[in-house]
């Protein structure tokens, strides 16, 4: 099978790249292993949240000061603003409405009840424009009986700490009885399936209206909107007070929804999404990949003009650490990982763990290096790239989307 571009990896960066290419009429295939890290999503994209342990207010300005190994520096600081706009527009085209501005961060509210800088937040989620203040003085923080993947006391404590008066009613719904009975079913995504039924949404709205009086805002965990945001909008329309959602512990309904929307849009644009398949073999001749083989298609090789590596970090198996070394498993690309295993990590879990910044090494155009030389028709994007720690810097989703777009734009031109 022949394509213009084959993307290895169906997470945020692979889908973003695939959409940007397919929009320009290119024939694109995405080989996607399965679940991706959008399942641990916060509801917000982040461009750059923190530098040297300090919150970043103006990401575009701060990006200009990053070191040369950071993927943003390869893109070029002067291109960040327009790529950020392109990213927001791409999400909107896929039906994902977001609010935010790359020149100035806003703040999301985490399940621990703290605020963290964000670039784009999914419409409907609670945000605040200031890290130490809330837009409300009096809120009603609602939980669903039996739902323990939302540490409501932590959130309430955080909101009170920011000066809000917080009520924390729990609503009990008959339609969740079945889920409550099976101990493993009270998970956010399972609840979202229950609320694809509009009469269940109406029952939830009734319960919220009964429980919440005289409040400036109702906040509830983001357990609605599995395939689309219909259920979210329906609930908002039926709840009397302004209603906002808050991110839960994984699995994240918001992330599942974004994933579904991007995948759907990609396919609508004519893209081929090879779900549940994985790349088994990448054949390299000289400085080019000639074809790949996948587990499901076996003998039938896939060929393309360009190949994009969007396989993610360790947790997505884009990088592998074994007893001896850290390596990139598909092409054995050069990585920036320390040789000595003891240097991969350090004591103190919350510190800047070196392995988090490991990735494949690329030239300034994101061609990955193999044995010191770039592969001419291969690009690497997203979390498989090294040079930054997405956890401490708060730039993971931004790097995924912006490197994907930078590469797509390069291929398109």
């Amino acid at each position, binding site marked *: 099978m022949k394509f213009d571009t084959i993307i290895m990896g169906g997470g945020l960066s692979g889908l973003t790249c695939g959409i940007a290419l397919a929009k320009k009429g290119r024939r694109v295939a995405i080989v996607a292993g399965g679940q991706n*890290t959008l399942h*641990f*999503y*916060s509801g917000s994209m982040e461009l750059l949240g923190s530098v040297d342990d300090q919150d970043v207010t103006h990401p575009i300005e701060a990006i200009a000061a990053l070191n040369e190994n950071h993927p943003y520096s390869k893109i070029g600081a002067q291109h960040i603003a327009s790529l950020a706009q392109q990213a927001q527009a791409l999400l909107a085209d896929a039906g994902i409405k977001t609010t935010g501005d790359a020149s100035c961060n806003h703040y999301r509210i*985490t*399940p*621990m*009840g*703290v*605020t*963290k800088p964000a670039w784009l937040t999914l419409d409907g989620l609670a945000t605040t424009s200031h890290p130490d203040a809330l837009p409300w003085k009096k809120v009603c923080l609602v939980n669903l*009986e*039996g739902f*323990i*993947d939302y*540490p*409501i*006391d*932590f959130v309430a*404590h*955080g909101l*009170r*700490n*920011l*000066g809000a008066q917080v009520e924390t009613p729990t609503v009990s719904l008959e339609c969740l*009885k079945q889920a*409550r*009975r099976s*101990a*493993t079913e*009270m998970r956010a995504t399972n609840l979202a399936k229950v609320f694809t039924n509009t009469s269940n949404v109406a029952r939830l709205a009734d319960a919220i209206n009964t429980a919440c009086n005289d409040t400036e805002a109702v906040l509830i965990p983001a357990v609605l909107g599995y395939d689309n945001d219909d259920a979210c909008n329906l609930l908002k329309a039926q709840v009397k007070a302004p209603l906002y959602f808050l*991110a839960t*512990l*994984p699995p*994240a309904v918001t992330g599942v929804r974004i994933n579904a929307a991007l995948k759907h849009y990609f396919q609508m644009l004519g893209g081929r999404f090879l779900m549940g398949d994985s790349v088994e073999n990448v054949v390299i001749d000289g400085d080019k990949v000639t074809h790949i083989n996948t587990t499901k298609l076996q003998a039938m090789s896939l060929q393309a003009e360009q190949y994009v590596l969007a396989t993610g*970090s*360790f*947790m997505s*198996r884009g990088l*592998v*650490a*074994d*007893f001896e070394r850290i390596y990139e498993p598909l092409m054995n690309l050069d990585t920036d990982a320390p040789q000595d*295993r*003891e240097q*991969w*990590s*350090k*004591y*103190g*879990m*919350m510190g800047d*763990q070196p*392995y*988090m910044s490991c990735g494949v090494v690329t030239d300034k155009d994101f061609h990955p290096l193999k044995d010191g030389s770039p592969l001419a028709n291969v690009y690497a994007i997203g979390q498989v790239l090294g040079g930054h720690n*997405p*956890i*401490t810097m*708060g730039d*993971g989703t931004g790097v995924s989307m912006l490197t994907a777009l930078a590469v797509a734009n390069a291929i398109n031109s």
Partner: protein
Amino acid sequence: MNNNNKHYDVIVIGGGITGAGVARDCAMRGLSVLLLERFDFTNGATGRNHGLMHSGARYAVTDKESATECIKENMILRKIARHCVEETDGLFITLPEDDLAYQRTFVDACLAAGIRADIIDPAEALAIEPAVNPDLIGAVRIPDASIDPFRLTVANVIDARLHGADALNYHEVTEFIINQNRVKGVKARDQHTGQIKEFRASVTINAAGIWGMLIAQKAGITINMFPAKGALLIFGHRVNKMVINRCRKPANADILVPDDTVCVIGTTSDRVPIETVDDMRVTDQEVQLLLSEGEKLAPSLATTRILRAYAGVRPLVAADNDPSGRNISRGIVCLDHEERDGMAGFITITGGKMMTYRLMAQIATNLACKKLGNNATCDTDTTPLPGSEQIATQRDGAKRSFAFNAAEGRHGTYTSKIKLDTDADRALVCECEGVSVGEIKYAVENQHVHNLLSLRRRTRVGMGTCQGKLCACRAAALLGRFDNNIPKAQADLAQFLDERWKGIKPVAWGSTLREAQLTATIYQGLCGLDKAIERKEGSK
């Protein structure tokens, strides 16, 4: 200064298995007892070993006395601590590189010590234990078993309490109250409030394991101990169903024990300085040794995810006339400091093994009773521990939820005391180990739980495959609600994850590293836990 006005017969220092056993024995003999532990129960060597219930076979050739003690205690624990023991049996295998002639010596020594030892065909060994190295050339079946030291210790503490004892964890002995060469009691710091409290007793028993050396120093007494570090690795699932040992002279990393949902390989043995025993880290060399030797017992370990590495410190005691430490005894050492050092009212019980804790407790209690003029007999060898009474649990199908079944393995007959009446109580906090909201409430109310660490030891929350990925947060939220203290619960959560990381770091490659990245992504990235614990608490 907060003085507890009660005058006890006995204060026991150390909440490991020995101290808990001593407290139980003393209380059962009618003595009034206070048990003090500076951190959580089982924090020392008790919580950092194989979880192996030795048959004694390991010592049969080299130390017949220990072997005989072990098999006797082994048979007793099967009866009195049923809910802590899994009767797995064990194999001593001979590999091509080992001397098969040693097998005969081994079996003869076992039989002489009273340990059943059946030579079986290697093919039969492979049939009953498919995980064993298929290259084996010999196998002996012996009555090893798996035991949960956390459960065993807490059962002893609970029974001591049921017999009137007081037990305080998170109370660290800071000094002795001494009057005219007699220990009259201790001062202890409440670790949560910082308050120093005085406790008085006629006899004080030092059962603090390796830390007993430091405790004795506070009374001006020298005990010559040699801390011996033993490192172990836990694997992500249970590859073997029987204990697997090497049939050779005891050496490093030659025991693989199935424990609950996981299995453990160990151990190493290295002398370490006493100053380091509070912060044992497993080195890369130890990890390599454990892995290479472990794979010889069960080859599938090479491809099994390692959950974490940890190390305990054995309290080896040198004979009094040998300060060099060459003449180390692995046997039980009971020191009457009145006789030995002229310090009345003070006893140290140390050496020995987890396996012989009950016997150690009996010896120490006998001495305390002698001093107190108490003639009661020791019944700990026949009286079942709480949870192990021979009462069949009601098999009411409708009431036996998943949460109940999972909890029963941990709490035995006491499971019926756990409230699991509502869906909310039966909701699972920890899916790997099947720990429900109701079980956590029970542990908090009845088992001296002060934080996630102690909750983990009581219930196995966060001990399974995921190492606390989501359950830690769920459990922290519950504890925060019970305590009505959110900042403490969040700090506890961060501390718990960091403690898990300490064990993960030495083995952070492969899927272990993948899981660690996922955990960090959730707690640092998504949740911002690091920000929460740094947050300045504002006015409410």
